[in-house]
């Protein structure tokens, strides 16, 4: 879960980390109603992606009119395909220097990577001139951080000596996979302030992170994937709101691959879906949820179900599919179900005896062929 900067800063501030004072104006929201800070400000588009500065999504403003003009220019736009959720209007900081800190999980080393630099700015990851980096296990983090910061020149040394251990605590406590502060503003009086923060929380840890859960409950619109996963226990990502093919699939790799191959053929899949059919335990709730998300998108003309059953009993799956479709009568498009694995014959009987408009096909290439034929108007409509 990639926190927008505003939420990242609120979380840091709750831990006593200095951040510039700022307010959030939602996309399309009323700027007049917001209590914007006095004096010169920054207007920062809130979007879960990097590269905002280069894309012109962070701009300085000196008057309320300026703020309004900048927001009007950015509102409704997307950055790297990600929607702008709103704007943080933030007091501008006069700083003497910029520094850089990041903590991230390094999979290869199975350790936490710390990177500190006395220079912040846009290209710090490319130009790691005076940067220092180390790997540490969680319990070694305080010592390693101290050693790293000691190697830096003043005044970054003093500021980072204070900032990095506190940021490392937050990284561990909230089970982050990335916490990057760039820039960390060093002020003339020796104090420091977080200029920007990228904070990514491990989705699998959210069940034991109450503060993050509260954030998700308040902002399911900003974090639809993580909010869905917390409530429903599986992954669903809408990749194209105008998509024509709804996917009800199990397995992350195969679902990704299907999307890649459909796109390569110029087709528009609606969604990624790893429904984890092995965890249904006789409950159609996940299927009902996915069907509802699919019918909410009017562009969908056909649904492809793909289950290569490892852990899943296909007979049970077929029963639940029929039950779920009964709960979502708005789902009227044809369904092509590619099922293979345990209890296929029984599944075939169950689907055959139902009044669902479903074609069962055990071969994936043939199933994709049926889906494309339906889109091209060559499919036989059943039911």
């Amino acid at each position, binding site marked *: 879960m990639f926190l927008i900067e505003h939420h990242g800063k609120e979380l840091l501030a709750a831990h006593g980390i200095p951040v510039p004072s700022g307010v959030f104006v939602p996309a399309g929201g009323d700027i007049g109603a917001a209590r914007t800070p006095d004096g010169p400000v920054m207007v920062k588009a809130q979007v879960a992606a990097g590269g905002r500065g280069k894309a012109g999504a962070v701009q300085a403003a000196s008057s309320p009119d300026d703020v309004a003009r900048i927001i009007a220019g950015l509102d409704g736009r997307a950055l790297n395909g990600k929607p702008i959720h709103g704007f943080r209007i933030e007091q501008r900081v006069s700083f003497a220097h910029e520094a850089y800190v990041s903590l991230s999980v390094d*999979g290869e080393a199975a350790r936490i990577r710390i990177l500190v630099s006395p220079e912040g700015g846009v290209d710090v990851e490319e130009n790691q001139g005076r940067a220092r980096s180390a790997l540490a296990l969680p319990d070694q983090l305080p010592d390693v951080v101290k050693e790293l910061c000691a190697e830096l020149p003043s005044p970054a040394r003093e500021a980072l000596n204070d900032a990095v251990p506190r940021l490392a605590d937050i990284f561990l406590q909230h089970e982050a996979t990335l916490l990057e502060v760039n820039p960390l503003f060093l002020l003339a009086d020796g104090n420091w302030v977080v200029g920007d923060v990228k904070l990514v929380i491990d989705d699998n840890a959210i*069940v034991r992170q109450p503060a993050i859960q509260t954030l998700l409950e308040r902002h399911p619109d900003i974090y639809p994937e993580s909010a869905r996963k917390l409530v429903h226990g599986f992954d669903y990502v809408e990749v194209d709101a105008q998509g024509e093919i709804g996917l009800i699939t199990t397995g992350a*790799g195969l679902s*990704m691959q299907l999307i*890649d191959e459909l796109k390569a053929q110029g087709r528009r899949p609606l969604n990624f879906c790893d429904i984890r059919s092995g965890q249904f335990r006789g409950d159609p709730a996940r299927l009902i949820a996915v069907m509802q998300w699919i019918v909410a998108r009017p562009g969908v003309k056909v649904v492809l179900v793909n289950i290569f059953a490892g*852990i899943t009993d296909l007979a049970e799956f077929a029963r639940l599919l029929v039950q779920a479709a009964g709960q979502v009568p708005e789902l009227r498009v044809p369904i092509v179900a590619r099922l293979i694995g345990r209890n296929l014959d029984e599944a075939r009987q169950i689907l055959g005896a139902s009044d669902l408009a479903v074609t069962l096909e055990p071969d994936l290439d043939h199933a994709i062929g049926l889906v494309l034929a339906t889109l091209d108007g060559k499919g036989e409509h059943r039911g």
Partner: protein
Amino acid sequence: MDSTLFDPAVPVIIQGITGRAGRTHAQLMQRYGTRVVGGVAASATASREPIGSIPVFASCADAVAATKARASLLMVPPLDVLGAVEDALAGGVELLVCITEGVPVHDALSIVRLVRQRGAVMVGPSTPGIAVPGRMKIGFLPDAALTPGPLGVMSKSGTLSYEVCYRLAQRGVGQSLWIGSGGDPVKGARFADLVPLFQSHAETQALLVIGEIGGTEEEELAEVLVRARFTKPVFALLAGTTAPEGVTMGHAGALIHGTRGTAASKVAALGKAGVRVHATMHDIVEDAARMLAPAARVTLS
């Protein structure tokens, strides 16, 4: 890595055997030929009635003492995995196969550290399991895809490997040793760690790698293939080449930030190492079948 751990006769216990999935798969594995010698139910309130002929113990130490098990299949909920790993290592288990999906990354950091300290081998978390097709499987790799043959398999994705191996099996190309390494960013055996095992594995004539975007495992693999002078043909398929940046696609490891973990970087690294990288299931199946299918081999010889 001790290759005898992947012997078809390795004795296996199942942690979490009294759960719904544990019970079912204990019996399916046994029917497949796996030597399931025991199970562990760690909860104080759990019933320890045998599952069929399989005795159930309170801890791995008890189970290993009674059965001489060397491997354990972990089928416990995500937040219980760290404790189950501690129990397995304390009990002397040498090979841990963890199918659990959704293990928190910070738990995985502790898990990998413990496993390395003990010199044990871990496959997963988020693995569908390992198999010597026709002989044994630890986990739930579907029988429909398992066929004995010449192809070593390592995969981050369960379902995509089932699909590709199933198609290849229909073309007469089965598998020698199948290791689902799982899609988590922090895990036990990584692609690169498995290279020596497949290098020395006599039945393996070629290697199938099912990778995906995110992390650096494919790049690490490319380096080790070159360094180890791996001589068997390697085929690779990469999933998620069109995935959006910053969004997790099911596998926690399949997350791109900036240019790290992109498909382009992986394709380039693997290509340079002589790996036959493909973009579609159809292409990789055709290429591997052309080289390995029985008819093709007759023609070549």
